């Protein structure tokens, strides 16, 4: 086994081990009732944010494109999940909550993936800053559209309306314009969140260490060289983008089905930036880092009220400092000399802008 391979295997083992260990520990704590109510309420959202962060890392860290509309895919998933779950319950009379949850999450992923394809086709022809701003634009467009979307069920099935609320008599509203997705039955469970994280890890970690994943990273490191080697840049950027969209959609469905309402203002540009902060702080291209920082930064405001007040301020400073510290040649050289030996122990091979924080 080569050195690189061994390092990768250890990294993956730690990642999976940590996630599984944390799950088992928390399950025990829940059974023993030794976990606070507020933290217990955070478990499913934490799972959703982890999936969001890891999937965004696939786009930013591995394919090297800045997507600023990731919350848009999450909202597509959340709405789809709410609608599908409501439809299964009201129209199909499917009683089994677990089955409903699974179908809803898969549907959320599929629809978000479809949105990813539709958005990716025009967006991925662009480069760098333009791509970032257009993904931002798409995120806002999605938010605008769901704001004027009306979906309800009657005995006969689903009813859609757009811009103005024209619904038949006796309708049960599932999505009610600016009020968002309403009367959701919260069926999401921590176990489902855990399974979703595992699926995400398998997809992302296996992908990046395969032919397609290497192609994705090659397009990040040098677009022209990748093309000259016969790697179709658009295809692989698309692959990363759509995979991330599917995962974000599933995270969205999970997140949406954890509460009774979902409103469009939950998925603004700010939310995309939150996830970006998870990714940057955890390290671009560092999956384990994303998991840790997503967890840490979701729990911290709950535990530390003072932090909650200054959260966005701290996030802003984190973005700036991490980028300067990992990209300025002078500072990097200095840091390498200081932390070199420590860093070598924890180093993940893959990082682009080099965003690693230990």
């Amino acid at each position, binding site marked *: 086994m*080569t*050195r*690189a391979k061994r390092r990768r295997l250890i990294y993956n083992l730690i990642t999976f081990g940590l996630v599984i260990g944390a799950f088992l520990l928390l399950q025990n704590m829940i059974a023993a009732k030794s976990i606070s109510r507020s933290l217990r309420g955070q478990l499913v959202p934490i799972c959703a944010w982890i999936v969001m962060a890891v999937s965004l890392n696939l786009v930013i860290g591995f394919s090297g494109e800045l997507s600023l509309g990731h919350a848009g895919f999450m909202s597509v998933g959340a709405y789809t999940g709410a609608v599908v779950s409501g439809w299964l319950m009201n129209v199909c009379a499917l009683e089994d909550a677990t089955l409903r949850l699974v179908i809803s999450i898969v549907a959320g992923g599929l629809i978000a993936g479809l949105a990813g394809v539709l958005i990716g086709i025009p967006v991925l022809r662009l480069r760098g800053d333009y791509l970032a701003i257009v993904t931002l634009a798409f995120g806002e467009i999605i938010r605008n559209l769901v704001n004027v979307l009306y979906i309800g069920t009657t005995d006969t099935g689903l009813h859609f309306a757009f811009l103005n609320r024209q619904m038949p008599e006796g309708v049960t509203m599932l999505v009610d314009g600016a009020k968002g997705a309403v009367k959701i039955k919260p069926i999401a469970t921590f176990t489902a969140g855990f399974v979703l994280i595992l699926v995400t890890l*398998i*997809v992302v970690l*296996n*992908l990046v*260490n*395969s*032919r*397609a*994943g*290497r*192609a994705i*990273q*090659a397009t*990040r*490191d*040098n677009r*022209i*060289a*990748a*093309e*000259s*080697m*016969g*790697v*179709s*840049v658009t295809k692989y950027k698309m*692959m990363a983008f759509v995979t991330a969209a599917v995962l974000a959609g599933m995270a969205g469905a999970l997140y949406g089905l954890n509460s009774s309402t979902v409103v469009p203002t939950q998925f603004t540009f700010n939310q995309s930036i939150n996830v970006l902060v998870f990714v940057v702080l955890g390290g671009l*291209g560092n999956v384990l880092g994303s998991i840790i920082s997503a967890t840490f930064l979701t729990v911290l405001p709950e535990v530390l009220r003072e932090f909650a007040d200054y959260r966005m301020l701290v996030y802003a400073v984190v973005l700036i400092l991490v980028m300067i510290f990992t990209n300025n040649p002078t500072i990097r050289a200095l840091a390498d000399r200081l932390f070199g030996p420590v860093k070598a122990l924890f180093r993940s*091979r*893959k*990082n*682009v802008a080099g965003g690693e924080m230990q």
Partner: protein
Amino acid sequence: MTQRIRHRSDTRMVPVPSHSIVPERDVDQIPVLETRHLGIDFGGLKAVDDFNLTIGRTEIAGLIGPNGAGKTTVFNMLTKVYEPTTGAVLINGQDMKGLNIVQASRLGIARTFQNIRLFDKMTVEENVRIGLHNQIRYDMLTGILRLPRYWKQEKKQHERAMELLDIFHMQDLADEEAGSLPYGAQRRLEIVRALATDPKLLLLDEPAAGMNPRETEELMETIARIRDRFQIAILLIEHDMSLVMGVCEGICVLNFGRIIAKGTADEIQANPAVIEAYLGKRKEADA
């Protein structure tokens, strides 16, 4: 002049119908590259104009000329980074019109870059594996689900990558990050990566830049060895005249975007137009 590395010392350059010359041994085959009146405008400025060149199947050819003569622009047109404004490029007799960079690569044209373009954050082996991207394949789902085909193809890729790295004795560096290699090793890795795409024509853009005389000499031998082993054509841009004169069978001289001379090393060195273009560089050419 340093000794010439001609593994085929009998090389004789003979004219072909398109008024270029190729080695006699390649003359009965379709040339690997043929350009016809190739030209490109950059906003009214003719960077390259009326560029005609034919390269035989196993020829090592050189493209030389002063800085800014348009040599790299020719490479960019051949690899479809730039779309030529006029003329045609034929690879193995097939017109490249309308193809993009990726399709050009699949036709069997590979290159290195003047300003090295490795995949810096990936390992040396992974860089070569990107070169093997279209040689040893499996799809995304096979990779994610780790199906048996994944393991089989990965093993194949690894073995092939190591085999190729052996050309420059670089197997020990396989796990290093490409961006952290010394300059000369990066240049060699670029050649290995290009070879991995299984090209018919290999374009080398200043392969000896930044190398010391000993390294250059080694490189010269390796270039000849690559041609013999893979039976491919090589076109190289180089300022180091000892390398060009030592290894190239046919040489083409470019100045201000136009070809001013074509011929063998001896012919080029005796050509008054070339001497004029290189005025003051004569000494270096003889070094």
